[in-house]
Structures are given as structure tokens and as C-alpha cells.
């Protein structure tokens, strides 16, 4: 018998190999993770809903298939996964971290959910998030914050804090996040895990509850680059249900990750974004980043300094575009068809029921952004705000285009600081917004980006992320560079994620 605590420490690729070789069953692996969740999630609060029965049934189905001699449905068949609570799951609650959807059970599966199920990936449950994916700390969840497994007093990043924390807490070997302004990469960076924002349109948005349609992008979260690549291939690819889905094959990301793991980056040109260092950046973060750049050079890459002058305006542009779209996307939460309804006592008009429900159902950050977006789109202000922001977006795309004429990928720190303390920035939204400073340009441009752990800050011992950015549809470059770097770093300093302090709850 395999020791179940060991199973939670393995990578998805290792688990898949064992399951497919029938050394261990998917049900055993699943049960090990469910037990781990039961043991530690009171402290981490990565999950909003655990689907114990559904997960075990899915695992047993995979086991039965393998026992019958059938080939695994995918390279990840039988491996458990934590799904951000922003994807619809038929028969399983989908709350988006909001009171508004507290009791909502969707009647349909998101395309990502469907692809996971068809691939035999076992969905353990739904992970905590900032309400409607708005935030950088997972403190905006209506159901309470998630804690960073590295330090329970700190945030796990946002909005996908639940997904990344579940990986760092060994509650799941794989997770799915969504990135609108950095919500996959930023939590990845501060929890010491890998997070990938694929090219916009590379993973279907059908069934992803929209925050900002032109920015939202689902993507893989994992503890290793290879695991992320394997998951990327399961969920990626064209979906006729999503008009913005790219009708092209998924870039060969698994192949690229395996190639990168051989540790040779010669011939690769890497640009360091000069705008993303210096003032406002935590010195320990910059030191880790510089060490990573040296490591890339040592792997044979040619490293050059690249300027993207308009990246400075990315944050303000983002905080006009994203709230504008959000104000419209969230209009459907009006108590008429599903979700929360208050004051339906016969004394209120339809308009009052809508208004009172929205007042009760949305948290302060969501309301703030709805107000911002409503204002930015209103006639008389549209050109000054939304229109200008779209122009800035075009300038940022041009910066990327110019940079990618010189280099294959760009790198920067993923976040300016390590994980901050819970509560530290709650009353200062502008300080909170800075957490996504480095991740936002790739979202505005719609190209691909990834965060891979690059050591611990020497000041506070907390994880730092290295961000790699690639042109649209060149997602494979991210995996090659990140896998090469990951291999070299682990060889010298050991796997970062296995340095997570033992959780208090684990001893219980």
C-alpha cells in the first residue's frame, strides 16, 4: 500500500504514470487529496465546495476503464484537480465568491469543465476567489479569505487565491484559474506555484462567469511547468460556443516543456522589461529576479534590455476597461431569474427588488468597479475614459510587437512584492491594484504569459515569481523557457514548493 500522504506530494505527471500503470488507483489518489483537504482546509480555506462523492465516482470510473484495459482518456486521466469557482459545473454550486450566487447550481457545464471531465480529470471541488474575480488577495470573497500556506497571516494572491493555495497546501496537484489582470500568475508567484495565462482565445470562455470579457482567460495552475503544460493541452483548443475562441491547434506546450527540461536555451533571445524594476519593487524580489536572469544567461540565452514605454499606462487603462465591461456583465444579476432575491414581499417594485438585491448581494469591491465602469461608459465620458483606455491598449500591443521583433520572450518579476498581510491593503484599493502591475500588459494585449517560482525573497522568506511573456499563439515558448529555468533552479536550490512550512492543520 502506498502511503497516502506521499500521494499528495507527487506531481500530476507522476501520479498519472502511477495510475495508468495501475500501481495506484485514481480512487486512492483522490481519497488522499480529499483527506488532505479535510485535514488542512480549515486553516487554508482554499475550497468553497468539496464534491467528495462526485470526485470519488469520477475516479472510480477512470479506474474501471483502466481495469477493463482501455487506454486512459488523456495523459491526466485519474488525476485530481481544484476548479476555480468561476467555471460553471452542472449540479455543483458555482458562486464566484459572491452572496449573489450563494445558492446557484448551474444547469450546464463550462467547456473547460466538460473537457476536464472528458479527459478523466477528477474535479475535487470549487476553489475560493475574490468575488467575481475582482481583487488581488482573495480577501474580497464573500465567504472569507484564503490563507497563504507559506504564512497564514498573508494573502495567497488573487483573484485565484484558492486555486494556487490548494496547490501549495498539497490539497490538489492541479488547479484551474482565470486571469483578467493577473489572477493566475500573481497568486502563482506569491504561493510558489506555476500559473499560466494562455493566449486570449486559447482556452474557451464558455461557462466562465464573465468579469471582463475582452480580458478573461482561463488557464492551468500546477506545481511544475510540465504539469501545467499537460493541463493546458487538456483544456485548450477551439470551441464553437465561444466566438472569440481561436480556431487553431493548441501550441505544442508539452513538447516545449520537455524540450526545455533538457536545460538548453542557446539561440533563445530574452528581453528584460526595463519598466518593471526599480522604484516600488521590493529589493528581495528584484534580487531573486536578477538571479533568475543570470540563470537564464547560464542556460545559454541571450539576454537584452527592452523598453516598453507604454506599460506605465497599463494599470490605469486596465482599471477603465475591466470595470466598464464588468458593469455590463454583472447587470444580469438582478434577482429575476436565479441567485439571490431580497425584498420580494409584494411591497416593492421590480426596480426596487433589483436594486435591493444588488445592494445586498455584491461586496464593496464589486460595487466600486460597477460604479467606475458605469461612469466610464456614460455618454459624455466615454471618449475621455473608455475610448482613451482602448487607445492605450493599442499602444501597449505595439510595444509588445516592437519588443517581440527583437526577442523571443520578455521577462520581469511577476509581482512587485511578495505576499502582503491579510488586511494590509483592504482600505487602500490603489495599493491593492499595484499587485497586478506587471501582469496587466499581457492581458490587455491578449498574448501569453506565465509565472514560475524563482526562489524566496531574502528579506521575508516568501516566494517570488518570474514572469515570462510571449507573443499570441507562441505559448510553447513560455513552457520551454520556464521548464529550463525550473530544472536549473531546482537542481541548485531544491524544489521550491516542497519548502512550504508544514501546515498546523497537518499535524491534527
Amino acid at each position, binding site marked *: 500500500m502506498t502511503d497516502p500522504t506521499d500521494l499528495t506530494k507527487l506531481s500530476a505527471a507522476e501520479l498519472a504514470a502511477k495510475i495508468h500503470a495501475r500501481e495506484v488507483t485514481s480512487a486512492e489518489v483522490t481519497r488522499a487529496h480529499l483527506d488532505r483537504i479535510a485535514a488542512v482546509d480549515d486553516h487554508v480555506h482554499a475550497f468553497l465546495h468539496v464534491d467528495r462523492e462526485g470526485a470519488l465516482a469520477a475516479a472510480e470510473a477512470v479506474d474501471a476503464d483502466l481495469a477493463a484495459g482501455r487506454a486512459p482518456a488523456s495523459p491526466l486521466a485519474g488525476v485530481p484537480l481544484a476548479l476555480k469557482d468561476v467555471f460553471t459545473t452542472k449540479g455543483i454550486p*458555482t458562486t464566484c465568491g459572491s452572496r449573489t450566487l450563494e445558492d446557484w447550481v448551474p*444547469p450546464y457545464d463550462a467547456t473547460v469543465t466538460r473537457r476536464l471531465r472528458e479527459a478523466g480529470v477528477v474535479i475535487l471541488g470549487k476553489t475560493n476567489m475574490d468575488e467575481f474575480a475582482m481583487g488581488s488577495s482573495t480577501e474580497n470573497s464573500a465567504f472569507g479569505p484564503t490563507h497563504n500556506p507559506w504564512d497564514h497571516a498573508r494573502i495567497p494572491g488573487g483573484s485565484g487565491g484558492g486555486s494556487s493555495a490548494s496547490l501549495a497546501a498539497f490539497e490538489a496537484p492541479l488547479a484551474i484559474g482565470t486571469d483578467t489582470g493577473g489572477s493566475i500568475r500573481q497568486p502563482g508567484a506569491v504561493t510558489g506555484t506555476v500559473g499560466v495565462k494562455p493566449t486570449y482565445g486559447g482556452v474557451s470562455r464558455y461557462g466562465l462567469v464573465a468579469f471582463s470579457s475582452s480580458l478573461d482567460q482561463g488557464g492551468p495552475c500546477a506545481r511544475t511547468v510540465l504539469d501545467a503544460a499537460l493541463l493546458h493541452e487538456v483544456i485548450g483548443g477551439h470551441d464553437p460556443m465561444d466566438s472569440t475562441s481561436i480556431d487553431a491547434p493548441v501550441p505544442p506546450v508539452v513538447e516545449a516543456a520537455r524540450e526545455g527540461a533538457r536545460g538548453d536555451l542557446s539561440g533563445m533571445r530574452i528581453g528584460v522589461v526595463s519598466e518593471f524594476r526599480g522604484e516600488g519593487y521590493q529589493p528581495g524580489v528584484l534580487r531573486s529576479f536578477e538571479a533568475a536572469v543570470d540563470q537564464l544567461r547560464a542556460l545559454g540565452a541571450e539576454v537584452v534590455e527592452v523598453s516598453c514605454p507604454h506599460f506605465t499606462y497599463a494599470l490605469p487603462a486596465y482599471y477603465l476597461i475591466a470595470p466598464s465591461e464588468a458593469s*455590463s456583465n454583472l447587470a*444580469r444579476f438582478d434577482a429575476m431569474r436565479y441567485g439571490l432575491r431580497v425584498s420580494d414581499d409584494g411591497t416593492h417594485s*421590480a426596480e426596487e427588488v433589483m436594486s435591493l438585491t444588488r445592494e445586498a448581494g455584491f461586496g464593496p469591491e464589486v460595487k466600486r468597479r460597477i460604479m467606475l465602469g458605469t461612469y466610464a*461608459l456614460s*455618454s459624455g465620458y466615454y471618449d475621455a475614459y473608455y475610448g482613451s483606455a482602448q487607445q492605450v491598449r493599442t499602444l501597449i500591443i505595439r510595444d509588445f510587437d516592437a519588443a517581440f521583433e527583437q526577442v523571443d520572450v520578455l521577462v520581469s518579476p511577476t509581482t512587485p512584492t511578495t505576499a502582503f498581510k491579510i488586511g494590509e491593503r483592504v482600505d487602500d484599493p490603489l495599493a491593492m491594484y499595484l499587485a497586478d502591475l506587471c501582469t496587466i500588459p499581457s492581458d490587455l494585449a491578449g498574448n501569453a504569459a506565465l509565472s514560475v517560482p524563482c526562489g524566496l525573497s531574502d528579506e521575508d522568506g516568501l516566494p517570488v515569481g518570474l514572469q515570462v511573456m510571449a507573443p499570441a499563439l507562441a505559448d510553447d515558448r513560455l513552457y520551454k523557457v520556464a521548464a529550463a529555468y525550473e530544472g536549473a533552479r531546482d537542481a541548485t536550490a531544491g524544489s521550491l514548493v516542497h519548502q512550504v512550512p508544514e501546515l498546523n492543520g497537518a499535524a491534527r
Partner: protein
Amino acid sequence: MTTVVELMDYAEVVERFDPVLGLEVHVELSTATKMFCGCPNLFGGEPNTHVCPTCLGLPGALPVVNGKAVESAVRIGLALNCAIAPWCRFARKNYFYPDMPKNFQTSQYDEPIAFDGHLDVVLDDGEVVRIGIERAHMEEDTGKSLHVGGATGRIHGAEHSLLDYNRAGVPLIEIVTKPVTGMGARAPEVARAYVTALRDLLRAMDVSDVRMDQGSLRCDANVSLMPKGGTEFGTRTETKNVNSLRSVERAVRYEMTRHAAILADGGSIRQETRHFQEADGTTSAGRTKETAEDYRYFPEPDLVPIAPSKEWVEQLRTTLPELPWERRKRIQQEWNLTDEELRDLVNTGAADLVAATVDAGAEPGEARSWWVQFLTQQANTREVELAELAITPAQVATVIGLVKQGELTNKLAREVVQGVLDGEGEPGEVIERRGLKVVSDDSALITAVDEALAAQPDVVEKIRGGKVQAAGAIVGAVMKATKGQADAKRVRELIMERCQ
């Protein structure tokens, strides 16, 4: 609330004011599926049965454009002599309303697919008026609210409301005219003629059911007045969802007389939406637009832009059918009608219907007499326009064919048509249900003839004595006995045989 308005005499209205019209027509396309999802595009049905996550606006659901609807939009644009945008987008029109699932309508705003066209409209006296078309754009329909328990059927005062989203997401084309000026006293007539011409065109193109009674064609009439000889448009009112051709004319006329009375009295017109009352031909105030609504339009990020290629547009141009007015010219020649005869045909609204009936296989003479006589009479008794009768030219052609084959007598045929008009189904179904087939079985007729002969021995004597015309009495009796389902000619033959 309600103020009783003294209306100005119409002759005085047009003496003192120049009316300006703006007509917005919404057309539901008869595509197989909805605008942005695969749900069936069907009228009616049990509430909320033709719905899916997308047309219900459920969290996470996304739209995908219906290619057939875009094709129809381009064809309509071409038929209206519009330019077709080489690149256009959908936009979101944001406002809260319970029957709108997403609380924004996916529509087109500053980038319509078709713009800057015209439609030539023939008035009753043959005069042709060119109406400028501002734009034709694509959008989706909303659901329907049923407000229960109130006096007016409107939301205010209702005890509760029921929502049916079957119609939500049905593809719509909105066709907007440029301001129609200089029509003087004929403005109401022009409004009706325009909507009629548009309806005939859309029907000929087979892109919509164009049923005003079912809301698949809806007209909003904007009316304003300016002092005679003026150039600055007055404040307009928008009379919403006028649902028959006759009502379009009445609503425009009513608004002209109402505006004139207020203006002449030194008052000012409030910009507002109004509702037309069929019963007395008046309008009443709806929503007041005191402050302009802010729909916060912005490009729909869930949909990629539409870029109809030149080649595709030209290919679609070749699919345009013979347009109604072209067809009229053709039938005039083919049927050898004088201008006056054609105009009569057009004025009764029968020309296109007759032509379509001929196209469906009927003889021109038969088709003409059916529409101009019996069906016109039916339209009058039912108080609808001829074209609004619930019968299609194809159905009329079928009935004519059955008469020709001896399956129906003329009398039975009229009853069949009545049945179709009453909504009893296709002609075949009406014949079946009402048992209207001609009795062509001789044995049944012989029995009836023998019975009639036995009942009137004196008549038999007369016939045998050479008074052949006396047979009429027996024919009548047989027809009565067979409830009119016998072929009178055959009955007469049988009588003659039996009396020899």
C-alpha cells in the same frame, strides 16, 4: 393624469403645419434558430421551452452569431438599396428591464451592417415617393412580460408579472428611415404605404413572416410638426408597436391633429413614447423621456467583428427575388391590364397576392376573382387588410386547383377558405374536418336521386313529358340532401338517366 385633448381639424393642421415622420420598423427574421444560440426560433410555444443558457443570459453563457441572420440582414440591406458595411460590430445597449435576460441588448449602434439606402413607395393614386433609409441593423429580441392583476395590463399596478423568454434572442432587423418631410396632408398615407411596401418586400424575400398581428413586424411611428415653411424640426413623439397597417395611418394622423392642437394653443410637445388605442384610434402617454436615457453603448467584447466580403455581398445580391414593384410591372404586361385596372388591383392590396397565387399554379383570372371578390369581402367583414388575412397565396392556389379537379364545388371551396381563415389549418385539413369533399361516388348519388324522384312523382312525369328544365327541382333536392357536396352536373346527368 389624462387630459382630454381638443383635436385640430385635419384640413387646418396641414394648412398650418408641415409634418415630419420617422419610421422605425422591427422585423423578426424567420431563421431556424435564434440570433446568438441554437434554440428554435418559433412563435409561441409553452412559456420558457425554447430557451438555453445563452438566451437566458445565464452566468458564463456566451453568444455566437447566427450566420443566416447576417445573410438576411445583408439581403435586406441590398433590397433597400443600402451600402453594406465592409466591417461592423455588435454593441451592448445597457438598461435594466425584467424581460431582458442580460440587462443589455446585443444590438448595433454606430456600426450598422447596412446604411444609406432608399425604398420607392407607390401611393394610392400611383404617385411614387422615395423614402430615405438611414440604416438597417441587427439586434436580438427581448422576452415577454405578462403583468397580472392590474387594470391596464402594464407593469404599474400589477400584482405580479410572469416572464416568458421564448422570444428572447430572436433575430431582429431594425430599419430606420431618414426624416420624411414634405408629405403634407399625405403623411399618414405615406406612412402606411411605406410599411406596406416594406412588408411586401420582406415577404417576397422570404426573410420574415411579417405578421403584424403576431409582432413579427412592428412599427414605431415618430411624428413631429413644424410651422408651415419652417426648417427646424419640432419635438417628436414616438408611438410604439403599432400593429396593423391601418393603425399606422390612423396613429400618424391622430398625432398630427393632437400636436397641432397643443401647438396652436401655445403649448409644447413633450418628448415621450405613446401607445396607440385600436378601439378609438387615439394615443396615450407612456414613458416620458425627460432626461435622455444613457444606454452606455460599447462594442460587444463577446463577439468578433463581422466583415462581409465584397464577393459574398455580390453573390447575395443575385439571390434577391423579383421585387414586388417589378413584379407588378410584369403582371400588368402579362395580364394585359390597363393602368387603371392595375391600380385597382394594387389599391385593394391584391396585386402581389394575385401574382403570388399565379406563381403557385393558379390561373390569373381565377386568382384575381378570388382575391378581389370573395377574399376582399372577407377582409372587410373581418376588418383587416387583405394581406393580413390568415391565408397564403399558396393555399388559395390549392383551393382553386381542387375546384378545377372537381374535388370541390365553388360553394364548398368558399367554405374551405373560410375554414382556413378561421385557423382550422391547411385546406386539406379543413376538408377533412368539416367533411366537405364533393360526393363523387355515383352509388351514393343514385340513392339520393332515386329518393328525390320518388318524393316528387309529378316532376318525374314532367321530365318524361319533355320538360327538361323541371329537373332543376330534383337537382335542388339532391343538393340539399347531400349538403351541397354533390357535383350538380353529375346529378343532372343521373336524373336524366333515371327518367328515361
